């Protein structure tokens, strides 16, 4: 069934979108990530204009992370105070990101920026996660317990604050900076930034793993909601019909994925996710490195 998208101005198969939403939803439910980093490149691939794909994907992430956060709130695994600090940083970063996005859009370099960010971040995160989970698997085979550093330079910074749910007493500067950074990425790449924030919270801030996912999702809702609004009011690129089709598939898929995830071990899950992240990264990197078949592209007139 073909459906015409009013903002993207292309006609696409509705079942394809539902299926894509569902597939990415399953993965996101399994791994606890928003899935934006997979969905946005897939949308480019089926011919949605990049600007529309990025803005609409932000809208879809609002739905999937809201659905997931409700479950975490019930389990009391959301550090609201930490979430708020991250959020303040996130909103600033998001505004900054949309501003950069607009400048580059008029210069015709949006594609490059989005793809480069993907290659760099997916490559780095995927690589780190792969090595880290390999080590964990090897260590558990040897019977060693994983160790965590407790005192780093981060604990020496001023403006300390107590985060009771996380059991932390640290400066607000590092979480706020993490927030800004993720906000910028969210605006530019159309992702929630969970795949950056989760490792940052565990390794940089030293938060306990059980509150990390919920807290990250909590702040992602607000940052992506803000990003959606900014894209909608400055670029007019949020496609509501596209978003609805994606999120219907996505929310159902996420619940299915969460049930599959129960049967896999944490390290196995992480290694699978790392492989997937690296695959997406490799595909995008090849596109940048290999001479494209068509050197020319058509864009809207801009200055």
């Amino acid at each position, binding site marked *: 069934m073909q459906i015409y998208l009013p903002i993207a101005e292309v006609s696409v198969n509705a079942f394809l979108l539902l299926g894509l939403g569902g597939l990415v939803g399953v993965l996101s439910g399994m791994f606890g990530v928003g899935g934006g980093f997979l969905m946005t490149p897939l949308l480019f691939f089926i011919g949605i204009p990049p600007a529309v794909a990025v803005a609409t994907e932000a809208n879809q992430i609002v739905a999937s992370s809201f659905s997931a956060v409700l479950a975490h709130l019930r389990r009391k695994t959301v550090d609201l105070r930490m979430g708020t600090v991250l959020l303040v940083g996130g909103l600033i970063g998001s505004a900054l990101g949309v501003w950069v996005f607009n400048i580059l859009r008029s210069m015709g370099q949006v594609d490059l920026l989005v793809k480069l960010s993907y290659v760099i971040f997916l490559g780095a995160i995927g690589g780190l996660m792969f090595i880290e989970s390999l080590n964990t698997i090897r260590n558990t085979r040897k019977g060693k317990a994983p160790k965590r550093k407790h005192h780093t330079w981060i604990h020496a910074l001023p403006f300390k604050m107590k985060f009771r749910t996380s059991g932390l007493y640290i400066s607000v500067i590092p979480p706020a900076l993490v927030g800004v950074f993720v906000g910028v990425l969210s605006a530019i790449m159309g992702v929630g930034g969970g795949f950056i924030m989760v490792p940052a919270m565990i390794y940089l801030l030293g938060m306990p793993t059980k509150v990390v996912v919920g807290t990250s999702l909590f702040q992602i809702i607000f940052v992506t909601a803000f990003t959606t609004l900014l894209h909608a009011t400055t670029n007019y690129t*949020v496609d509501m019909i596209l978003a609805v089709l994606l999120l219907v598939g996505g929310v159902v898929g996420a619940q299915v994925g969460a049930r599959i995830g129960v049967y896999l071990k944490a390290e196995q899950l992480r290694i699978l996710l790392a492989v997937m992240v690296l695959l997406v990264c490799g595909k995008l990197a090849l596109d940048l490195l290999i001479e494209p078949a*068509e050197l020319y592209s058509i864009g809207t007139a801009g200055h």
Partner: protein
Amino acid sequence: MIRALILLLALALPAKAEDLVAGLSQNRIAISSSFDGSEILIFGAVKRQAPIPEGQLGLIVTVEGPQRPLTVRRKAKQAIIWVNSAAVEIDHAPSFYAVNTSGPLDDVLSNTSDLRHRITVRQAIRSVGAPMDVQDASAFTDALVRIRERQELYQLNIGAVEVSDQTLFNTRVELPANLVEGDYTSRIFLTREGAVVAEYAATIDVAKVGLERFLYTLAQENALIYGLMSLAIAIAAGWGASAMFRYLQS
């Protein structure tokens, strides 16, 4: 004086000897949610008072979408990656352009007629000035035509116009699904030995309707409300899915 007038009339008459009457299967195309491309049937007849004149007859039917300015960019290798570098602005390029002919283009249309009536797609594209650093501006126009031909937005259908007894003709123009709204123009040219002897034009109104219309207008004119509405839908869907699965589990 009168003699000169009669002479003038006599000279003008051969041009008037043949005229076109035509119709379109639809003058309005509605882009609804289920829009999946459309087909227009264009048909008509050559009207003449005198016997069929000499010279090879040709019929050319064009359908042209709204003009929009656009930018064509070319990638170049910088360091190790391919990035957009040179850009040329095209002042006028139809968003859709189809040319259907009754025979090979060289037989039915002379170059002078093409230039005067802007019939082929290259004549319909206007690019005023390329920046100083771009030497080969025509390569950009070529690329535009090539890309749009691949998307079936620019079409050249040789022999797609059926002519019977040098009088009746009909042709079909396929409009693809990725259509832009606006006023489309259909022009029909009757040629003899490549020279245009009669012309006919009609407009086709292509517009989004219903939900598509509503959402597009809202997104453009009340962007904030539209944005908030998108968020409300997202929140509702997220809550709905969570509630539904909790209900299924219990």
